[in-house]
């Protein structure tokens, strides 16, 4: 605990954390007004890799903008393309075969595990422990290999199509996924023993970086950040989409509001994702992966459409305002990290810099997704 802090505002200095700084994991800049090791005031400065994805979404046809979505969040790219195809399918009224939906759910969950694994490694590295990153990357490698075999790419996937998938999964993928499940469960136990139980690790996170439920509501934080603050909200449960209602899984919620709670949420989520993958592999039906009838040119009827999905970082929403042409009139992305990050300024006031950066790590920021 940092204890009560007396800030002498007459002896402060400005510290530029970023845009190139090991703790920001990208080109995020935080302008910190410091009093020694304590943060008086912080101001996040965005826009270093702004690429106007929303405008691109308005100037291009719906299929053309699909690969852009995986450039938002390079760690959990499938979740974002999933959101886009679901939104356009809802807008254009395209039916999706059941097999395609199951494969989508399996691959999205695999991607979520990969994303959380990388976050786990990077987070522990933020705290000064380098080794877990290497273990996590090795487990993630199995997922990337599997996904590469079916999707053709390792990071910025463009696997889903409007109405289905680009490529069916083969027996090799299913066998590899089945073999992966027990291995990953074993790894999670190992991480628990190596990291979660470590006294230094716990001391650095327990009661540090409190983010209350009110603050989450104020800034619109979702995903593991909100669930670590005791808000039981998961788009997969609360606004079900795809085939998620068919699966039996829990939403881990912790009420401690500290950095450790957010850590635990993500670690538990990996287990739940493994459960979903297991059920998906069991239930995977035969059949086509693309619908028989699909419009050649996608022109959704006039209207306003919204689709939210639960990505690894929280609720990702796509709003498409269509004027009936092949381009969207308005293409709005609601990215979870943007909201999660915006509470950092308020939450880190009065904290010590090392605790604040640990808290920033627990938010799981992916900068391209903030800047879009």
């Amino acid at each position, binding site marked *: 605990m940092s204890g009560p802090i007396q800030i002498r505002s007459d002896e402060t200095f400005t510290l530029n954390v970023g845009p190139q700084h090991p703790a920001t994991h990208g080109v995020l800049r935080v302008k910190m007004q410091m009093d020694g090791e304590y943060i008086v005031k912080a101001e996040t400065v965005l826009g270093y890799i702004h690429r106007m994805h929303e405008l691109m979404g308005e100037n291009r046809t719906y299929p053309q903008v699909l690969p852009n979505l995986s450039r938002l969040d390079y760690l959990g790219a499938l979740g974002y393309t999933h959101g886009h195809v679901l939104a356009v399918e809802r807008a254009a009224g395209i039916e999706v075969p059941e097999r395609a939906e199951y494969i989508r759910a399996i691959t999205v969950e695999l991607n979520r595990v990969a994303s959380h694994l990388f976050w786990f490694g990077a987070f*522990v590295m*933020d*705290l*000064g*422990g380098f*080794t877990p990153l290497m273990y996590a990357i090795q487990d993630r490698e199995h997922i990337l290999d599997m996904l590469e075999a079916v999707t053709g790419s390792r990071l910025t996937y463009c696997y889903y199509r409007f109405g289905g998938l680009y490529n069916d999964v083969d027996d090799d993928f299913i066998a590899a996924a089945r073999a992966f499940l027990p291995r990953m469960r074993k790894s999670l136990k190992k991480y628990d023993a190596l990291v979660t139980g*470590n006294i230094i690790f716990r001391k650095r996170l327990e009661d540090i970086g409190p983010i209350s439920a009110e603050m989450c509501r104020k800034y619109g934080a979702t995903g593991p950040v909100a669930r670590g603050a005791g808000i039981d909200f998961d788009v997969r449960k609360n606004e079900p989409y795809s085939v998620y209602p068919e699966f039996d899984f829990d939403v881990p919620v912790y009420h401690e509001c500290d950095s450790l709670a957010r850590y635990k949420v993500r670690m538990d989520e990996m287990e739940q994702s493994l459960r979903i993958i297991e059920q998906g592999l069991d239930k995977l039906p035969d059949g086509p992966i693309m619908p028989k009838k699909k419009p050649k040119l996608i022109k959704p009827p006039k209207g306003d459409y919204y689709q939210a999905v639960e990505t690894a970082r929280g609720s990702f929403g796509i709003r498409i305002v269509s004027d009936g042409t092949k381009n969207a009139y308005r293409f709005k992305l609601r990215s979870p990290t943007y909201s999660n990050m915006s509470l950092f300024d308020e939450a880190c006031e009065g904290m*010590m810099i*090392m605790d604040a950066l640990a808290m920033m790590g627990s938010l799981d920021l992916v900068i391209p997704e903030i800047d879009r």
Partner: protein
Amino acid sequence: MSLTILNAVVAVVIAIAFAALNAAYLVWAERRGAGRIQRRPGPNVNGPLGLLQPPADGIKLMTKQLMIPGGADKALFMVAPVLAMAPAITSFVTVPFSDTIVAHSMNIGVLMIFAFASLGALAILFAGWGSRNKYGVMASVRAVSQNISYEIPMLITVITIVMMTGTMNLKEIVAAQSGGIWNWHIVPSLSSPLMPISFLIFFICSLAETNRAPFDLGEAESELVAGFHTEYGSMGFGLFFMGEYANIVIGASLITILFLGGWDCPLGLFPGVWWFLLKIYLLIFSFIWIRWTFPRTTIYGLLNLSWKILIPISLFNLLLTAGLLKVF
């Protein structure tokens, strides 16, 4: 007269060579060890087992330009790396490797090593302050407060041992422990039953004194970029790096001498320099092992550990030993 000068020169050359070689090859050992711990090969391209990696790194560092940032305090900036390396090498002069192998056996050996070890904190302070970098200043302030608070329990522990042996000469401290593992200071004795705890305290303090993980707050790379040596490149950085490893060797040697019986064999047979080297390299391996296993502590956690736990325990141990020495 000329013979003593020759002796001194030879001793100094050997001390420097030993320190520099150790510093260079401990980097290699650390990287190989980290590789093994992290299930990857580590450096393995240059030479067999990557053994030519340290010379290659040395050549690279020496051929790079030394940049001095604008607004930096030039004198302090240039002095700091030298000050990091030189005391570490000098300390080797008084370290006894065996009964016969010691450059200069001094009656105040313990005191001298600690005096030189505290200069390391000054080097860090100069580096951080002189480079005029906010991260550097923050890191150096951290490192200095850390060094001060960990020297206290360390010295109290040493006083306990000096009280028990009645000498500050490192050679005599080892001689007092000869004859097998049951005579070593790590084993609780009648006059000092808390010695294993003292050993732990001393071990933790050596980690903190050498700025090693989990106490590497001075260079905490995920918070303070590279801490006090943020602005250093080329051989300035290289000297800090080598100084760190030379300090680790000194720390391991001190632990060996004070607690593990120096060059004494655990069974009391064939004492010799190999036992000493075996012990210090085992200790260094444990340093490496700890670094690649634990995350970093916080600055207040670190200070709390020293002032609220280590210092009271070591003080208690000191009083207990003093009392028991009087009784027995």
